[in-house]
C-alpha cells in the first residue's frame, strides 16, 4: 500500500478541521464549547487558504540575501490568513464577553436552556403569556 500523497493529507486535514468544527458547533450542548468549535472551523479554513498559496519548492516570501532569485510561495494568501486569524480572535473575544454576561444572567450556558430562557424573557418583556396560548384563528366559523 502506497501512502497517500501529501496534498491529500493536507487538504484532508484542513477539511477534516472544517467538518469537525461544524459538527462540534452543532453538537455542542455548552455554548463555551461552541465557541471553541468555531475556532477549529476557522483554523480549517485558514489552513486551506495557506495551502492555496503553497508552491512546491518555494521559499518564504521574505527577501534576504539567501532567497534572492528563488521561487517564492504566494504571499497573498498569507496576508489574507493573517487578517482572518485576527478577525477570528476578535470575534472570539466578543463571543466570550457575551457568554459571560449570558451566564451571569441565566446561570447556564446550555444551548437549549439559554434558548428557552431567552424566549421566556422576550415574551415576558412583550407581556405575553409564557406558554403559547393559541391565538384565535383569523377567520371564524360563520354562525
Amino acid at each position, binding site marked *: 500500500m502506497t*501512502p497517500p500523497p*501529501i496534498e491529500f*493529507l*493536507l487538504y484532508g*486535514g484542513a477539511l*477534516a*478541521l472544517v467538518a*469537525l*468544527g461544524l*459538527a*462540534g458547533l452543532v*453538537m*455542542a450542548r*455548552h455554548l*463555551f*464549547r461552541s*465557541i*471553541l*468549535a468555531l*475556532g*477549529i472551523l476557522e*483554523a480549517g479554513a*485558514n*489552513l486551506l487558504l*495557506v*495551502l492555496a*498559496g*503553497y*508552491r512546491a519548492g*518555494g*521559499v*518564504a*516570501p*521574505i527577501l534576504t540575501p539567501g532567497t534572492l532569485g528563488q521561487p517564492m*510561495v504566494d504571499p497573498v494568501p*498569507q496576508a489574507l*490568513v*493573517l487578517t482572518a*486569524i*485576527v478577525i*477570528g*480572535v476578535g470575534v*472570539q*473575544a466578543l463571543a*466570550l*464577553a457575551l*457568554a*459571560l454576561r449570558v*451566564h451571569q444572567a441565566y446561570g*447556564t*450556558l*446550555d444551548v437549549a436552556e439559554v434558548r428557552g430562557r431567552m424566549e421566556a424573557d422576550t415574551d415576558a418583556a412583550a407581556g405575553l403569556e409564557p406558554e403559547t396560548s393559541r391565538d384565535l384563528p383569523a377567520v371564524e366559523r360563520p354562525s
Partner: protein
Amino acid sequence: MYWMVLLVLFVTITAALAVLLAPNLLAAVAASSVVSLALSVLFVILRAPDVALTEAAVGAGLSGVILALALRRLGLWGLGDDNRPAPAEGSGDA
C-alpha cells in the same frame, strides 16, 4: 517532510477531537491551544512564517489567555464536569 506533516496533522486532528470531546472545558481550552500551536508548526512547514508567528501569538497565546480568563469568570475553572461550577481557585492563568 512527509512524515513531519503527517505527525503534525495527526496532532492537530487529535487535539481538535479533544476540544470537542474532552469532558471538562479546561482541557478543551488547552487542546485548542494545542491545535493552534500544531497549526503554526504546519504553517512554518508551508513556508508561511508570518502566519505561523501570528497563529502562535494570537491563536495559541492570546486566544488561550482570553479563553482561560473567561473560563475562570464562568466559574468553570477546574477539572470537574463541565457544567458544574467549581470554586475559583489558583491564579496561574495562561
